[in-house]
Each structure stands twice: as structure tokens, then as C-alpha cells.
């Protein structure tokens, strides 16, 4: 069922210059951390306050927003650069069904070219646009991953990890997680991921 704020997910297998679409549908799974963050913003008289306890990807409880300084300005940042696997769009090999209390991927692929690594390009951010006669506001996030490990890799779970500045430290939170049909990447193949977040009336 369509919600008021939705995520759509499209996945392509990349083989040389060919991009073969393997999934195009609704992502289902914002998880509890996302709700807690929205809750915190609506409640906080100062973003430096501790309004809610949120579990980070290491399963540690973090007070949120607790932003330490104006210069920090990290809230749920997704625009991770190349080689960064701590936040942005991230992928893994876990197949356990999604639970709204999930705080991380089952098994994250680390960035790199070694065995069991995926090479992470940057997460790019599209502009917010209005479509469907101004009944929808949407934007896209895109990231490429390449299998330079020399072996085959199975990708089955996808997530958005946000970067926050909490009390002066970089902390990462899982905002969404989806489990889809496994895509096997042979050596040299890649994956293109595109999330579309949209608010519609």
C-alpha cells in the first residue's frame, strides 16, 4: 500500500556498459530510527538537546539530536563519497526478513577490492523536484558498486545509513532496510542502486 512518504527502489546489474534492471518497485522499509529522528526534530527546542535514544549501527544507544556545534551540521547525511561504506546507500548479503527494529544490515559488504569486498562509488543526490501536477515532491539517491574482489558476490539486502554528528562524534544510523531477491555479481560486474524518496498527496 502506498504511504504518504514512500521510497521507491530500482536496482540494475552493471556488466561493462550494459545496465540490466533487476528490480523496480517500492522499497518497504523505513525502520524505527527514522521515526525516532522525526520525533526528535518535532520535539527539540534546541538541536543540541537529547530528545530520544536511538540505536546506532554498532548497537549502541545514542542520544539524539545532541548536535554539538553549528559547524557539525550532520543530521542524517547520506551523501557519502567514494570509498565510504559507513553511510549513504549500503548493501549486504544478509537474507533475514526486515524487522522495524533493525538497526543495521545483516552482513554489510565492506568497501575495497579484497575478497568479500565491494568497491563503493559515491552516493549522489538529485535535486528535489515537483511532479504529477504538483502532487508529489521527490528526489533520488544513486550509488554504484563494483565487484573487484576476483570472486562472485551475492547482494540481497539494501539500506540507507545516515551520518550524524552526535555530541561531537560521527555516528551512523540505519534509516531503512530492504531484502530482495539475491543478485549474484561475477568478478568485474557492478550494481547500480537508485532510491527515490517522495512525499505525495
Amino acid at each position, binding site marked *: 500500500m502506498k504511504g504518504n512518504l514512500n521510497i521507491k527502489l530500482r536496482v540494475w546489474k552493471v556488466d561493462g556498459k550494459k545496465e540490466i534492471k533487476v528490480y523496480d518497485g517500492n522499497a518497504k522499509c523505513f525502520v524505527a530510527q527514522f521515526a525516532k529522528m522525526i520525533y526528535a526534530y518535532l520535539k527539540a527546542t534546541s538541536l543540541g538537546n537529547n530528545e530520544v535514544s536511538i540505536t546506532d549501527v554498532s548497537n549502541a544507544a545514542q542520544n539524539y539530536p545532541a548536535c554539538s556545534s553549528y559547524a557539525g551540521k550532520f543530521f542524517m547525511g547520506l551523501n557519502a563519497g567514494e570509498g565510504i561504506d559507513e553511510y549513504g546507500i549500503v548493501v549486504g548479503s544478509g537474507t533475514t526478513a526486515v524487522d522495524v527494529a533493525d538497526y543495521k544490515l545483516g552482513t554489510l559488504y565492506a568497501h575495497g577490492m579484497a575478497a568479500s569486498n565491494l568497491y563503493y562509488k559515491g552516493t549522489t543526490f538529485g535535486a528535489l523536484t515537483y511532479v504529477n501536477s504538483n502532487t508529489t515532491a521527490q528526489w533520488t539517491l544513486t550509488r554504484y558498486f563494483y565487484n573487484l574482489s576476483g570472486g562472485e558476490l551475492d547482494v540481497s539486502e539494501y539500506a540507507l545509513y545516515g551520518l550524524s554528528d552526535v555530541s561531537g562524534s560521527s555516528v551512523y544510523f540505519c534509516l531503512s532496510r530492504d531484502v530482495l531477491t539475491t543478485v549474484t555479481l561475477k568478478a568485474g560486474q557492478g550494481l547500480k542502486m537508485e532510491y527515490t524518496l517522495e512525499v505525495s*498527496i
Partner: protein
Amino acid sequence: MNVDLWVEWKLCDDKNVVLKQKRFKGKSFVANFALMIYALMRYAGDDTTISINDVGAVGYNFPDLIAASGKFGYCLAGAGVQTFGIVISDTAATSMADIRLDAISNKNTTLTYGDTTMDASVTVNSTTDKATFKIYRTFTNSTGSGVDVYDIALYGEYYDGSIDNMFFNLCVDHLNAGSAVSIPDGQHIDVSLEIQVSA
């Protein structure tokens, strides 16, 4: 499903007996809510600015509003405060089909606005796979005559450390599909908005 907003209202007499009630899934979030999420996700060291209109249709650059000491959608307005929190209207919005709706139409100023409050925490239920919380406000009619209301909205307050009194509309919905909800003198209407994240 992903993130939904449920609207509920109860019309009650002075003894708190519920006379009418309605609960429905709203279409409620407007573009400012999207812009809020967009800015939070994008602004990790990114200096790109996006424009957002306040309830008076004045444009502001959104990332500039993010400050550690600031507010970013604060909605817990105190009793009597009509500038933000859950607000209610005297007429039905005519532009509900445009996601860029800046404000509610003809905000009511004659009812007595109670506190806007929130649940003490977010409820996470792995059985139903939902994470939810509610925002509440009561509007009491002490005007001496009946008052008709039509729409509700949630206005968030923003503060960047220097510019005060910025209020942005985050969601708006008809209470009764565009028809009036009549509040006789001495009665009140309890309104709640439930934000529901579903896995």
C-alpha cells in the same frame, strides 16, 4: 507501506463525553515535510541551499536554518499559542491538491488552543512492524456561540540562532472531507496526528 500520517478527532462535551469521532489515513504531508527530510539527508557538509516557504509564503534557504542551538520543526506550542503546533481553520483549503500548500486557509483564532503535546516516546512494535508516535491538541469553544472548523495542519517552528518566528506548514488535511465540524459553545475537539513508520 512506509511513512503514513493518521488523523483522529473527537468532539466532546464539557464532561468529556465523546459525541462524534473520526479516524482516517491522511494525505497530509506537504512539500515542506519533504524539504525537511531532504535537507537533513543532504546537508552533511553539503552547502547546497534549497528554498522553503514559511506560512506567510516568504522563502528561506533551508540549510541555513540548521544550527546546533536551533529548532527544526519544533511543534510543541504552549496553551494559547496559535502560531505553530497543530492549528485549525475556519474554512476548507481550496488548494489541497497542490503539495506546495504553504499554509492552512483562514486559521481559526477564536477557539481556545490547548498545549500541543507528543507521546513521551516512539513505540516500536516488531509484531506489527510499526514505529509510531502521536501529536495532540485540544481546541475549546468558549466563544458563546457555535464555531465551524474544517481543516487541521501542523506548523513547525524553525530557529537558526538569529531569525526568530519562522513557521512552516508540514502537513494539512480536511477534518471531515471538506465539510464543517460544528463545535457548539462549551464543547471541545481533541485532535491527534499519528506518524506511523511501517516495515
